[in-house]
């Protein structure tokens, strides 16, 4: 039950070590740890999150939708269309955003489109797992979001 083309076998081995399970207070009733469950029987109910986003916007929640832009499982274009389709208020122009690389140079981190309560952000060159593929821009983006800073 592992996703295709991904590794991380060391995590499976580590989490199934008896001493690690003990340190984490894992119950004896728990199954062997796998990346993705092979016992779960899951029924999907929703094909769109439009009503949930609209309700959240009405409640004045702040929302960040971000996408590594070379992922094909959930590609950036579909999520950008989705955010646009919400017709959020006060759309700003799509603009680049930047981060400081390890060598001190300013680099393009991707592009963003801000609205009153919702921001759509791309992370340039990242795949599905942004914090893994682009850790520095990923952290900067997270900080901007929870500290309500502009991109």
């Amino acid at each position, binding site marked *: 039950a592992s996703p295709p083309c991904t590794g991380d076998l060391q995590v499976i*081995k580590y989490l199934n070590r008896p001493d690690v399970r003990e340190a984490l207070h894992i119950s004896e009733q*728990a199954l062997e740890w796998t990346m993705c469950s*092979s016992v779960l029987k899951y029924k999907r109910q929703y094909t769109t999150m439009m009503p949930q986003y609209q309700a959240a916007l009405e409640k004045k929640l702040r929302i960040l939708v971000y996408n590594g832009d070379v992922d094909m499982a959930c590609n950036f274009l579909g999520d950008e269309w989705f955010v646009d389709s919400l017709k959020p208020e006060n759309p700003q122009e799509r603009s680049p955003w930047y981060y400081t690389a390890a060598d001190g140079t300013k680099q393009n981190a991707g592009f963003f489109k801000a609205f009153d309560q919702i921001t759509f952000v791309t992370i340039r060159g990242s795949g599905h797992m942004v914090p893994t593929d682009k850790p520095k821009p990923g952290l900067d983006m997270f900080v901007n979001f*929870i500290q309500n800073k502009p991109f």
Partner: protein
Amino acid sequence: APEADLITNLPGLSFQPNFKQFSGYLSGVETRRLHYWFVESSSNPSRDPLVLWLNGGPGCSSLLGLLTENGPFQVKEDAETVIQNPFSWNQVANMIFLESPAGVGFSFDTAKNYTSSDDDAALNNYYALKDFFRKFPEYAGRDFYITGESYGGIYVPTLSNLVMKDPDMNLKGFAVGNGLSDDKMNDNSLVYFVYYHGLIGDKEWFGLLDACCPKNFSGICDFQGSEDLKCRQKLIGIQMLVWNSGLNVYNLYKECYGGVKDLTLHFDKTRGKFQSSNFGWPFMFLKNSPVSQRREKFLSMLPGSVD
């Protein structure tokens, strides 16, 4: 904080963390027990916001997020040494990694009921959060954010819609990374993505437009809405290209870990995989997609009868 859940000695740690961490169980609905791993902020735990992180699937563990993405620890290849992630999100937030629904990771159900759904997952996560605030009353009223990735695109907004109605939780917002937000938009945009990235050529692209879109259409073509048989067959080709041609679907420009195993679908080899997993990651075969329909057809055939 619950003393019994405090992690005092994590095996293999190569550094001394300057934050507290806890691991244990939170109660979901009735017999559900959801495992959490909570890492406090390494900056100012008493003031920094509280953030929940959920990986996708449905059915994949959020401990993957903790140990390979935005958590403070990374496990080295030897599966013994744990090193520090210099870009951990717990530098600015108190992070909860929750394994859900029951049956995922270390989470379980005492009645061994491992069925779930979008609403069920949201409700169990909500109950688990209520239990978290009971266990950690010092976090009551703290600015709270719900975040996640992939199928978290469903988990996060559905849970947020429950939490935002609860005055005991100070939900400020939510974030979704590479999330599934809308099936139709995700599938239609993929066709454009595939063309724009040079995975198909002009001939295939104009063939798709011709087969799938109304004559003289303008705007975005609704490929998935087409009932045309020729269009459906071409879309199967796109799905196969993306998922089964050796590309890394999660990162177009990254190698496929372990290499390309097989370029064709061998029924006898894949049947077990399909049966053991009724989901993909984040959703290998979308409901009613051409590949999903083909999978159903495979599963109804006798092993060995098709290659």
